[in-house]
């Protein structure tokens, strides 16, 4: 996996006027509100967000299943949709890791594709390191837990940025939960191919989050959240996950927009 030091060495650009948004296929068809909330946050910071209609999926499902050629063709399709040198903000650490690190690997030695990879930023990483966003908390007192995806943590090395963003919210208490850095058991096709192992993992993750005694946990990855929320919902748990974009937006504007 990626050298964790790479993030320390990453040179962040000046705040741009425009960015591209890669919404991810999951947000596109299942959770578009998280995409809209992320866009609202970026726009509030004075950034114009461009959403290329030609984007589809980063190719990770096929790549993780061993179908390299199929993944490559889809990857090329994405790369073509984001011309120029504008930063590309990705609404998932997992898709971000695919586009930033695995594309570089798949097309090793291709300078243009490497340049594309260098423009990939995970959403919370972009808010903290490029925008240096300052959040003014307008919400009520609340305790939340945070689930960071394995790809955000270990591939993108951005596990600290979600924490930093929540830390800026005065009324929000971030509760750590047991085995916080452990995988939720999603892993894309793994959750279906090895359903019983995945089930054991998500059962443990849900329990650890419930033991944190919060009503809401926050995450920047819908892959994990679809998994954990699905398991919580199945057991009629009161606990729910919320995308970090929605949470940050709701906390920093007067009225809650979307849940």
């Amino acid at each position, binding site marked *: 996996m990626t050298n964790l030091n790479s993030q320390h060495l990453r040179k962040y650009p000046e705040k741009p006027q425009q960015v591209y948004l890669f919404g991810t296929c999951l947000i596109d068809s299942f959770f578009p509100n998280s995409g809209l909330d992320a866009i609202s946050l970026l726009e509030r910071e004075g950034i114009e967000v461009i959403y290329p209609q030609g984007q589809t999926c980063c190719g990770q499902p096929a790549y993780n299943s061993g179908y390299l050629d199929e993944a490559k063709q889809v990857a090329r399709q994405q790369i073509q949709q984001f011309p120029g040198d504008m930063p590309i903000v990705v609404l998932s650490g997992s898709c971000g890791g695919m586009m930033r690190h695995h594309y570089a690997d798949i097309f090793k030695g291709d300078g243009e594709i490497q340049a594309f990879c260098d423009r990939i930023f995970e959403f919370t990483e972009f808010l903290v390191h490029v925008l240096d966003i300052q959040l003014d908390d307008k919400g009520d007192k609340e305790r939340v837990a945070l689930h960071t995806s394995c790809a955000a943590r270990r591939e993108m090395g951005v596990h600290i940025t979600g924490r930093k963003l929540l830390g800026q919210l005065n009324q929000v208490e971030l509760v750590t939960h047991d085995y916080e850095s452990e*995988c939720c058991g999603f*892993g894309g096709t793994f*959750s279906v191919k090895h359903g019983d*192992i995945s089930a054991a993992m998500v059962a443990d993750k849900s329990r650890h989050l419930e033991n944190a005694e919060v009503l809401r946990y926050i995450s920047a990855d819908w892959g994990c959240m679809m998994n954990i929320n699905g398991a919580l919902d199945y057991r009629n748990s009161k606990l729910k996950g919320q995308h970090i974009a929605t949470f940050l937006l709701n906390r920093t504007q007067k009225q809650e927009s979307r849940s």
Partner: protein
Amino acid sequence: MNNAAQYKIKVQESKYANSARAFRENVARDLDNSELRENFRGAMDYLVDKRKSAFSEREELDCLRQQCKLIKQRCLVKLPLLLEQLEQQLEQNGIVVHWAESITDANEIIAQLIERNNGKSVVKGKSMVSEETALNDYLELQGVECLESDMGEYIVQLAKEHPSHIIMPAIHQNKQQVAKLFAENIDGFDYNTDVDTLIQQGRQVLRDKFCQADVGISGVNFAVAETGTLCLVENEGNGRMCTTVPDLHIAITGIEKVVEYLADVPPLLSLLTRSATGQAISTYFNMISHPRQDGEKDGPKQVHLVLLDNGRSQAFADDELRQTLQCIRCGACMNHCPVYTRIGGHAYGTVYPGPIGKMISPHMLGLEATKDLPTASSLCGACGEVCPVKIPIPKILLRLRQESVKPKSDDKQVMKGQGAGRKALEAKIWKAWSLVHKRPVLYRTSMWFLTRLRGLMPKKLGAWTKVRTAPKPAAKTLHELMAQRSRGIRDEV
């Protein structure tokens, strides 16, 4: 056909091939065993904490990992040369070298050595390579008694099991289970569940055996080409007993254990013990350079080294897969693995469980028997993060998945059993998936249908909905909402 010949045929395909094929059934069995799961979770938590406290300085750890990765990579690049040099140096020192391509070759070499020396009783130090060759089974068929002398291995042998962890072979058993096992097997065992007392009583049995044994068998952690030295890391002193008391010492190891210089050993050793058990150094560190010499009062009269390939050269031949051979067998990858922690070591069905097992077993047993192993990972990367020699484990698992699903007819034959995991329907699905996702119009149309037909989404989605509710597609896609937005329509879902 005599027994040995029958056995040879059986063992050509290691007995582990069948148990690896049964991976899914093994998993179902062991996931249901709550005592087993508790034993593993508790033990892994302990080992994770121990490792963490052994590396208090992040910078030092990073530097040491980088250094050791480079050492192992340098040694692997020169592997053929270093093996020749090792053989030369060892022979000069009076240690006889034997080459074994398969596990059967290795077992035969060892059995012949024992026979030639009229060996009757063998004591073994811990050796995973001898587990790989199923040496105990082989020797038993030859009428040679083989006793495991590492406490964990001894427990596993008494229980007629296999190690469930490469460093802690009996970690799947708790002290109550061990006490019960001893009560059933050790004459005069004074029943109790105190760990120290248990170990003392077990050791008493072993002590007597050490004095009687005429052959000692051990593994090797590092074989130094420069000096012809075999290094053995251990904590119980049983390794030293096995390699000094009996007249005949046979060491067995994989070809990847060779290092170039003696100076390569200290950083590797420091990283090995700290990654494995959190120890600054192991209680014993043996450096074996020659058999007993004139005037020396102890030590074996003969020392032999068996160097085993068993699929390693297949990994060696490919630049990416070669990194698998950097492994120094510390076990940190399994200690940190959420899958291993849940299913335990036996479910894998292979000698080496956990992430390292998923990487190395396909070379030993072929992809046909092991095709379920590389996919049994969420690719969370916890293993790669702690690997002392920085093997990019998730990347290698991805590569093995590629080898497993690529057409059998593919010209590039990298691995035995290539294409064994390929299913025609699955291949077609990915082809269709790719077709849709590289054509934006087709993609948007598909998603339009998915969202419009969301009321028809089935409530049951196979394995997913066994423990989760099904996600529901949104009423409109983000693509649509953004297209509307650019036309000035704000339609919130």
